């Protein structure tokens, strides 16, 4: 089975799930300035494992802080029961020292603590020793700020769980992260990098093993779209690498604009407007970007969370499969212009969620070319060679119907990397003139086995031009060479 990594299937018709809208960038802090002060997070173990590190976010430190303890304890009567499963002591550095504690995420090594999936535990930070006062203490930012719900997992500095979302982390002996490690609750992209608008995207991979193909109808984004004053547009684009396979263009005046202030951004649902959505494949990385089409836009932003470290992404649903990517480009990617390559930023996650149109399986693995061809005569060696290029070899045998002239190749190739249509050129020149066109643009799944004219000994070049939609200026070409084997 494929690990779903805590991703959630959302069922609500009205949903602001991707955002914690009223969270300020700072968390709610608790001054541990008394010997009786503590912070407590209550949670269920997500997995049976051994915890070796506990993590938390620090606000201020003052003076010479005392020594504190962070521990995992059992739960009795709903609260931490003092039975310590594992702990570590820590002494924050002097507040004026140059060590990065203030405003940072800290992992503390603890004595190994075994936890059992589904059981209830508490993570507790409390005072151990040393002089503690308002002038000698640490502040723990234990929740995001401001919501109307009490949360579980949750945090408290007393008995009642906070009405804000907890910030805490656990790391096991294998390095897997649990909880909700947030270095900064959210951040903005800020002003567009003028005059070359920066393109920001979520890079995502739905893990291989979930299925064969899927389609994304749209995306819900939290951010701040540009104002409409300058009569320009912005794009929301689905990419396979640098190839545009889905897009919607929105005038700046359309989305309801508002400065996010403390709100964390506004919610926008953007739907791609292709008549046929591109097929995407599991196990392959794609990008959905937001990009201003004018340097005049200065306010387009996409709110995102930051992890303490890039590998702490594993503590979030989906793990490393979802992160930010950026690139600089002066214009929309075209055949003529090559934008810079995507820069992967594993420490950030743009706040969004996908709206799925279709989800496919069962099927064959999709990894590489799914192009099948056969010569004019059914040369066994060539047929075998062709079969090898289809990742469904158990279902493809010699002389099966789809290897006969005029029979649709169908499922053997319909999943090719999300493309929809194909043109085929034989021994083409660089301009791909019509003289070399042997198959007009057609649905890939409708491509049929064709008879090629007998050829002389030597290399025979076939070029398959693939598009995500008909007549798209964006395409990818795949070249295959045939050679008669006797």
């Amino acid at each position, binding site marked *: 089975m494929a690990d779903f990594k805590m991703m959630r299937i959302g069922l609500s018709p009205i949903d602001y799930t991707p955002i914690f809208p009223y969270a300020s960038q700072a968390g709610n802090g608790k001054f541990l300035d008394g010997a009786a002060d503590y912070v407590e997070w209550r949670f269920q173990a997500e997995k049976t494992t051994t915890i070796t590190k506990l993590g938390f976010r620090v606000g201020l430190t003052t003076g010479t802080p005392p020594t504190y303890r962070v521990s995992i304890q059992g739960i009795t009567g709903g609260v931490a029961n003092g039975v310590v499963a594992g702990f570590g002591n820590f002494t924050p550095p002097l507040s004026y020292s140059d060590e990065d504690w203030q405003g940072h995420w800290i992992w503390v090594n603890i004595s190994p603590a075994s936890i059992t999936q589904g059981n209830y535990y508490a993570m507790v930070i409390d005072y151990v020793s040393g002089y503690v006062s308002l002038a000698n203490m640490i502040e723990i930012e234990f929740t995001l700020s401001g919501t109307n719900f009490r949360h579980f997992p949750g945090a408290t500095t007393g008995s009642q769980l906070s009405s804000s979302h907890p910030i805490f982390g656990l790391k096991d002996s294998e390095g897997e992260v649990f909880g909700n490690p947030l270095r900064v609750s959210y951040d903005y992209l800020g002003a567009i990098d003028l005059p070359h608008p920066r393109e920001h995207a979520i890079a995502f991979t739905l893990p291989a093993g979930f*299925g064969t193909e899927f389609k994304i109808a749209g995306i819900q984004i939290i951010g701040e779209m540009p104002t409409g004053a300058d009569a320009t547009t912005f794009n929301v684009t689905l990419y396979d690498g640098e190839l545009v396979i889905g897009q919607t263009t929105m005038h700046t005046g359309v989305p309801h604009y508002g400065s996010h202030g403390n709100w964390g951004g506004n919610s926008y649902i953007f739907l791609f407007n292709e008549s046929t959505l591109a097929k995407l494949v599991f196990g392959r990385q794609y990008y959905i970007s937001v990009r201003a089409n004018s340097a005049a836009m200065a306010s387009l932003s996409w709110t995102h969370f930051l992890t303490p470290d890039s590998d702490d992404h594993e503590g979030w*649903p989906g793990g490393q499969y979802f992160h930010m990517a950026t690139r600089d480009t002066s214009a929309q990617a075209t055949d003529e212009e090559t934008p810079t390559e995507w820069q992967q930023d594993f420490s950030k996650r743009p706040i969004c969620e996908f709206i799925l149109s279709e989800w496919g399986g069962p099927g064959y693995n999709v990894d590489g070319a799914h192009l099948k061809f056969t010569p004019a005569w059914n040369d066994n060696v060539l047929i075998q060679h062709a079969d090898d290029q289809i990742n469904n070899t158990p279902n493809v045998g010699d002389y099966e119907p789809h290897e006969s002239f005029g029979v649709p190749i169908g499922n053997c190739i319909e999943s090719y990397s999300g493309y929809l249509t194909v043109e085929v050129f034989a021994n083409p020149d660089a301009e791909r003139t019509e003289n070399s066109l042997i198959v007009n643009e057609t649905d890939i799944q409708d491509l049929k086995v064709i008879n090629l004219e007998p050829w002389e000994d030597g290399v025979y070049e076939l070029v398959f031009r693939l598009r995500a939609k008909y007549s798209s200026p964006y395409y990818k070409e795949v070249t295959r060479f045939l050679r008669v084997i006797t």
Partner: protein
Amino acid sequence: MARANNLRLKFSPVLQPCIAGVDPGSNNVSTAIDDPSEYLAWIFQMPETDLVTHVGLRFYSSTNAPTYRVSLRSVGDDGVPLDTIITSASFTPENSWGGTFQWIELASPYLASRGQLISIVVSYLSGSIGPSNNSSISVNSSNAANHRFGLPYAIRYSGTVNKTFNHPVWALKSETRAYGIPLKSLVTYTLNSPEQAGLRFRFEPGFGSSFSLKGIVTELSGAASGSGKSFDLVLYDATSELDRVTFLCDIVQDATDACILQIFFGASPPTLSFGKEYFIAIAPNEADTACKLLGLSVENATDMTAWPGSSSFYSVERAISTDPWTRLKTERPRIDLIIDDWTSG
């Protein structure tokens, strides 16, 4: 491939199963069209290419209303509906329409394209109109105090264009399915032991071969209704119990507030099959609990086709665990599913 019916794949580190306080029945989210110059509008992108036959409106009240016109229009670059009408219908609300959701059939269907930016506009057409002669229509959700929606959105026009940040309540329908938010009302399932309420769910068989459920994210009120109380989260198939975990209400230490709870089952969750129906229920262990599961409702079961997952996900409840489930196909509880493993075919 199998239709995913706009299921949301969620990967936010922050939990929110659904909006709070979405109450189309609140007066403050409804607007009376009581002047000929006024109109209401909803701006959105069409989710799929389809032949639109009806527009859905949720009425807060209606008193000797005039005849109104509902129309589909394109949207200008400023995000405001254009004057040109694509298709329309006239309707005269009955006084009994207050508190109901109504589908208005368009005079001629309109083929809208996926992703097309389009608007629904409701405006005055004829007849007496004024404070005693009007309909008040639910424009958007209530209590979006902490939440702002930039697209889709609603417009109230009364001399000036007023775009709202609250979630719009808009709906379209074709011959085969509905779109948008055909929301009728909030619903609450008050749980007193041994009652159970929860979600019936079924993933399409084409999604894969098997999966397992790690837990849920849900929204409850009164989840911690007194010391020592608890409730169970129970997973069933059609005939038997498959998994169970107990949630200790004392952990929350609050008796009244709404809570967002992420609850996991224990180790080794059972393997479930696509194409098969399951039930996940909240089952309080004490008779005097005030625990309530929250949900949303539509007017007709077919309206659920507009919601993520379509008609495969709806509310169920029963008095005792051996009773058959009462299937509430016009309601959906506030539950998101946390998937553990997922296997293709």
